[in-house]
């Protein structure tokens, strides 16, 4: 009986709370400034949280740097971070929530190609411009969606660049390939395999593993029995570093090579001293080589009490490119808030952005013309690894 009487009360309460919240929102202004939200979508939990957080923090710094310029125009920048958990379903439902929020003009994301691909369908429907700092799968831009861009290189460039380096510079002949069955991991591994075959290397095996497991000794002992010169891993550090560790435990001292998914300080934590002799190709260079980059690293450290990760600077550049696009769209619109469509067009039109990690100029598909691949090697069990060489797109 008592419960029954509670229901109308609760309903009224809910209504009142909703009204108050609604009022707060509909104002949409803070201190006379109109709010522009930039959403980030990256995994803030789960196995690749280190990378996802780096993207979010990088974007936050970009917003902080541009805040004053936008305040002058009468806008206030707000970052609204979303956790896609590296899960396509979560990415899509976040994308719907983001699209429904009218203050959001652009999205920085995603880390994983597998999440970026379905989520970007939602962005496209809502004309919401997206710049990915890290989604390298070819399908991300090959669908030629007008809103989808990326500042990093493509897999079909990263894999071959790794194969080139392994065969021409390291001189390996027999290769064993392991991949993690995700679009990212298997795409990278397949691109590597095809190029390695073309260059005359023998592929001794092509095996898959399951993300989230910890014991890969079965695959590792198979690799050890095949006696390769190099193991290539297409996947992310949570599994890759364990494979390295378990390979070293079985007495395999050969070099292991991976893609940009291995580019994390956690790799070193997990594999320990076994990480020595591990190479990885990555789409981000060592930011601390340039003066601009060192300043960025210092600012990052000061704000977040963490060292820069590989993707921090790309997170920054992605957000900065979007902000430049928005700023152009605002100017074009005579200082008024532009439509999402206008922002997307302005972002795609960017040809001369000079960022922390990379220059950016988008081609017709949304790929960055200046994207480069860098090869790194762990000489000591310390992150970051040492940059060996950089390979530019032909």
């Amino acid at each position: 009986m008592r419960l029954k009487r509670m229901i109308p009360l609760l309903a009224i309460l809910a209504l009142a709370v909703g009204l108050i919240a609604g009022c707060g929102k509909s104002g949409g202004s803070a201190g006379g400034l109109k709010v522009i939200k930039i959403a980030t979508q990256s995994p803030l939990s789960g196995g690749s949280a280190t990378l996802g957080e780096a993207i979010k923090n990088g974007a936050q710094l970009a917003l902080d740097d541009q805040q004053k310029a936008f305040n002058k125009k009468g806008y206030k920048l707000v970052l609204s971070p979303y956790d896609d958990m590296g899960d396509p379903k979560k990415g899509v439902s976040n994308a719907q929530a983001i699209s429904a929020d009218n203050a959001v003009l652009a999205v920085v994301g995603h880390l994983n190609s597998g999440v970026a691909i379905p989520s970007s369908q939602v962005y496209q429907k809502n004309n919401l411009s997206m710049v990915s700092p890290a989604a390298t799968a070819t399908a991300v831009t090959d669908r030629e969606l007008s809103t989808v861009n990326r500042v990093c290189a493509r897999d079909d460039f990263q894999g071959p660049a790794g194969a080139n380096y392994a065969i021409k510079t390291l001189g390996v002949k027999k290769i064993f390939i392991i991949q993690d069955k995700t679009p990212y991991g298997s795409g990278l591994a397949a691109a590597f395999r095809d190029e390695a075959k073309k260059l005359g290397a023998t592929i001794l095996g092509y095996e898959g593993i399951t993300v989230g497991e910890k014991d890969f000794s079965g695959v590792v002992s198979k690799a050890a029995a095949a006696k390769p010169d190099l193991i290539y891993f297409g996947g992310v550090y949570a599994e890759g570093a364990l494979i390295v560790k378990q390979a070293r435990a079985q007495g395999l001292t050969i070099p292991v090579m991976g893609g940009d998914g291995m580019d994390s300080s956690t790799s070193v934590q997990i594999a320990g001293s076994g990480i020595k002799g591990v190479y990885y190709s990555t789409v981000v260079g060592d930011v601390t080589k340039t003066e601009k980059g060192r300043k960025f690293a210092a600012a990052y450290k000061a704000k977040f009490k963490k060292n820069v990760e590989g993707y921090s600077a790309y997170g920054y550049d992605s957000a900065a490119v979007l902000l430049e696009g928005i700023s152009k769209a605002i100017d074009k619109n005579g200082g008024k808030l532009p439509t999402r469509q206008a922002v997307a067009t302005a972002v795609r039109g960017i040809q001369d952005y000079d960022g922390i990690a990379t220059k950016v100029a988008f081609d017709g598909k949304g790929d960055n013309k200046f994207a480069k691949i860098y090869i790194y090697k762990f000489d000591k069990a310390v992150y970051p690894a040492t940059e060996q060489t950089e390979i530019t797109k032909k």
Partner: protein
Amino acid sequence: MSQIIQLLPQVLVDGLTLGFVYAVVAIGYTMVYGILELINFAHGDIFMTGSFVGAGVLFTVMSMGFMSSAPTMVLFMIMILVAALITGVMGVGIERVAYRPLRKRNAPKLIALITSIGISFILEDAVRFIADWTTGNYIITTRPLFQHKFTIDFHSVFPFFNNATFQGSFLVVSIVTIIMLISLDLFVSKTKWGIAMRAVAQDRETASLMSINVNRVISVTFFIGSALGGATGVLFLIQYGTVDPYIGFILGIKAFTAAVLGGIGNIRGAMFGGILLGLLEMFAAANLSTITHGAMGSEYKDVFAFIILILVLIFKPEGLFGKATIEKV
């Protein structure tokens, strides 16, 4: 074929390591099921919590100057005992807070099952929160403890075998699990508490008429099952060196499968089922592509292992060691 045989020793070593872990975790599922007919999905996360407690103990001991030079074995004993104690108490607590009230109100078994899934999520996120808060990263990596490398020279004795290489941790894991398995078996079959547990499993009402304190027996069961699970968590940490709050999920499901394979409710069956599943999985991971000529890679190892499970259950639905029981009314 020759390649499969060559790999056999290494597969055996790796498969046993994984199998032992499955076996002990499977016991936790099977004991609770035997007594309450409840699939305690939170058990996988008790295992995970154990590994984090172990890591926590290791970090604390290492930070105390005078203990950092303690022999590894002592360190390990402290880790495993503390983890077992804490997870054991946790198991009892979970039973008291979440399952006993349901039992008192005669809630359907499905409700208890859903509750256990809820607890599993709570544990995962609580551990993640604490780990993230104290260390800044919830993937915890410890320094390797038993790193000595052994090679069994199969090759010189049997030329068709390759050598098997393993680390000291493998020995530790095997010896500790074997001790745990044997002492549990003795406990259940020989002691008064063990007999009481079996009586409650057989018929709770009749057992209570025979002056057995059913609630206390259930608490003891949860304590032992969870303590074993937590201790296995420490073994897992020792073996793989890195843990995250989500290891309990996949491993828990596989251990549960092992318990079903051995005949749920049967402790020896769970031991056997766990070891069998570990070996099958490792065998499939190493050899599947050789067997199928590259059509299926090692990523299909779980499919292979579970097909065998389905086959076993088709022909022996009660599991390998289970007794066919008539549905209780």
